[in-house]
Each structure stands twice: as C-alpha cells, then as structure tokens.
C-alpha cells in the first residue's frame, strides 16, 4: 500500500495503484500511518496489515463501560450508562463520551443522608442512543449477559491497551493501602473469561500479574455466585502508576502515597 498527500482532499490510500480510500487527516509514524475514521476508530496501515484501531479515548471509554457500565435495550430506548461514586470518574466518562461520540451524557444521582447529616451520593451518567449502543455491542464491549465483556484486543495498539486498562481498573480495580505502608492492586470481575483476557493484556505490556483466582471458597459464605480476581505484584506497582494510571480521585491520592513510600525505600 502507498499513501499520497494531495492538495485538495488530504491523503489518498492506494493499493496496487488504485485509490482505496481518501482521508482528510493522517498521522505518520515510523512503522505505521493512522487515518482518522469516526467515533474514535482509526485505520492503521503498516507494511504487514491494515486494521481498525481504537483511539486512546475510545479505548478508555470501553474499559470504563466493561467495568461499571451497562449497555441495555429497553422498550423505547437504548441506554449506555456508567455508575460510580466518584465525581471525577463520572466527569471523565462524560468527557470521553463527548470526545468519541459528540454526545453529552445525562447525569443522575441517588443520594442518602445519614443520621449525622453526611450526604452520600451515587452518580449515573447515561447516553440514550441506539447508535452508540450498537456501535459498542458490535465490538463486544459489554454484553449480551450483564457481566459479559471482552476487551477488543484486536483493535488496540499499545496506547489503546493502556487506556483500556486505565478505564477498567478505575471501575473494577482496587488499591489497598494500609497504614504500615503495605499496598496491593487487585482487579475484580464476576466474568472469569473477560478477566483472563485483561490479565493477558497486562502481560503484553510487560507486567507480571498473578493468576486469576476464584474468591477463596474456604472462607466465603456458601452461595450461588462467584467472584474472581487477580493481583499485580508489588514490583510492578510503580510501572502501573506511571504507564496505566487512573482517573479515580481516591486511587490518584493513593498512587502519590505509594510513590513517596517507594521513594523512601530507595533512599
């Protein structure tokens, strides 16, 4: 394949001398060319292949939806929603939705006031759009079962993988930080297959995640549902903070503390 820059319409993509595509924008990198399509989908052309890849914004949005989001079809509407207690995360979801789909989600909150007068809120950002729902379903981002998700690995480059993991971890991740400085990073899901795929993505980036485990049967109450998780070893925590990061305010605070703990360790 070859690429021609034209004065009139931007860039032409040619295969055996025939024009197969015209694109107004292109980003030329060392080993590939990225053409912008729509809704955060790009066309990546390299010597080896051409494939559709997700922009980091779209990838992160997909990660958020795979964790705390839902795609539902109701009688009259289609809803893509995201629920969380963290305002920054909800705000992040809205900005990503706006950037990818040019849609501003509707915001709702459910609140509760304790006897002490403390207000606790749960936020919900909703996109009412059949077009968005089908666009995400088409790539298996979430569903058809409530908990089913598959990371769209074949559409993610390295930046996309990082962005997807940032989104997923901001929802279904956990950073435990105890007062004696111990820290643990866990990733949860009720859907084991999807979680195994998430784990593989960490491996692709050079992390050393532990194997996926079922919650300890010897200590959990007997029940009809299971939950799965894997942990990221401590040796990878700084790499995680630098390369993946989070949009969640509480995790950002903990990341700063972990960096200072590790800084002290090196002194």
């Amino acid at each position, binding site marked *: 394949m070859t690429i021609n820059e034209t004065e009139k319409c931007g860039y032409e993509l040619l295969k055996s001398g025939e024009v197969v595509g015209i694109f107004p924008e292109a980003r030329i990198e060392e080993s590939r060319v990225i053409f912008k399509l729509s809704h955060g989908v790009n066309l990546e052309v390299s010597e080896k292949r051409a494939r559709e890849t997700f922009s980091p914004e779209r990838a992160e949005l997909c990660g958020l939806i795979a964790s*705390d*989001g*839902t795609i*539902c079809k109701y009688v009259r509407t289609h809803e893509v929603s995201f*629920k*969380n*207690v*963290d305002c920054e995360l909800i705000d992040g979801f809205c900005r990503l939705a706006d950037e990818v789909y040019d849609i501003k989600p509707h915001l709702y909150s*459910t609140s*509760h006031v*304790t*006897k002490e007068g403390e207000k*606790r809120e*749960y936020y919900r950002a909703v996109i009412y759009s059949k077009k968005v729902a089908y666009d995400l379903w088409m790539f298996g981002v979430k569903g058809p079962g*409530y*908990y089913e998700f598959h990371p769209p690995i074949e559409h993610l480059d390295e930046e996309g993988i990082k962005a997807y993991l940032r989104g997923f971890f901001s929802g*279904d*991740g*956990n*950073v*435990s930080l*105890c007062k*004696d*400085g*111990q*820290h*643990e990073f*866990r990733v*949860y899901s*009720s*859907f*084991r*297959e999807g979680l*195994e795929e998430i784990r593989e993505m960490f491996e692709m980036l050079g992390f050393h995640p*532990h*194997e*996926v*485990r*079922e*919650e*300890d*049967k*010897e*200590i*959990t*109450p007997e*029940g*009809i*549902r*299971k*939950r*799965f998780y894997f*942990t990221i*070893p*401590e040796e990878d925590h700084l790499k995680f903070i630098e390369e993946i990061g989070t949009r969640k305010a*509480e995790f950002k605070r903990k990341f700063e503390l972990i960096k200072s703990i590790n800084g*002290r*360790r090196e002194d």
Partner: protein
Amino acid sequence: MYAATVWGWGERFEDVGRNCKKHVDKRWKENIKECKIEIMASERNDGVCYWLTVYLSSPRDVEKIAEDLFYTALFKGDTKVDFVNTYLFDSMVSNKVVCRKSIDEVRNEFDMFIKEVAKRFRSDSKIEPIAKVKKVEFNVDVCLICELESTVANKVVIDAIHWDFELLSNFVKSLIDDLIEKELASRVLGYGLRTGSTDSLEIVDIGQRKEMVFVRLERRNKPFDKNVDS
C-alpha cells in the same frame, strides 16, 4: 432449596425490591419455612468483599427489607453491588448461623492463625534468608462474620473479607452502625472468623521494605478451563 439471582449490576437500583418480592412471592409455598436475601458487594477503596444477609420467615416485608439492605450496601464507601440473590428453604437455616464471640476473642483467633501461618512458612527457601535480617509479616485473607439481632427479621449477618484485620473490623463496625440506623438490625449478637486451613496456602508476593518484609499468601488455584462455565 430454591435459589436465584434476582438483580445484578447494570439493572436499575429501583428494581431490587420489586425483583426480590416477585421471586419470593412466586416460590413461597406451604413448605417454605425461611427465606434469605443476600447482597453480594465489594468496596473498592479498601478492597473489602462482603455479603449482607437477612433471614425472614414471611414474604410480607421482603420488598422493603431488600431495598433497605441494598441501599445500606450501596452507600458504604465506593461499593459496587454485584448481585442480589434470594434463597428459599424448607427449614429454619438461620439457626445454624451462630457467631457469639466477642471482637477481642476473634482478634486473638486471628493472631493465632497468623502465627500458625508464620510457623509454616518461615522456613520457606524464599523467606528464611530474609527472616534472619528483617521482620516478616504474613498476609492472608480472612472472613469476619457478625451476627446481628433484628426486630424486622430473624437475623442479619455480615460476612466481610480482607487481610488487614483492623481495616476489616472497622469496616464491619461501620456497616453495623448503618444497619442499626436503617433499623434492619437492633444489636450485635457476636462475631466469628473464617480462616480456612493453612495446608493449601502458597506464597504469591513478597514486598520488601527497609526493615520489614510483607509476604502475601493465597490459596492454590485450579487451572482455568474456558469450556467450563464460570
């Protein structure tokens, strides 16, 4: 026993009570002696996985109680409620859940368990050389159980899992306060601890500090088969 998941994350919050009532009303026959409503949730800031369970002898107040239980969990820190499950039994199963120890007794039990773990793993080839120069701390998930008396139900039970006992007991204490505030429970009857055996534990992570070493242990895993439904 009839058991079903009547609500899962992604469904509307306001459907919880209605779904529970619908399932319980449909299945409640003469032979049913007790039903159990179970909220399975995880608090993501501290990483505590927990279950709130209420036992009832009548289907009458299921909707209201399920809703109150659900919202108690939902507003606890950064909680995600994974599932709401209902179970119906032809016998009184709540009698079998008895936890009557004090929190101090349970704390001692936890300390004993950690000592047992340390005894078993101190001589491990990865730990022995470090243990000679640094203090070693072993971390294993445990489950703290709390049995609560209730005026609206036969019993309310909390099961919560984490490896830091102080964090866990503070978390359970704050859940107890919320349950009492919502009038789902009236007082604590006692506590219990589930530790599992040390036989199947394995070392998964070693965190080094200047003067300390943290050793994380987990139970040995079964290999994952994609063809078996998770």
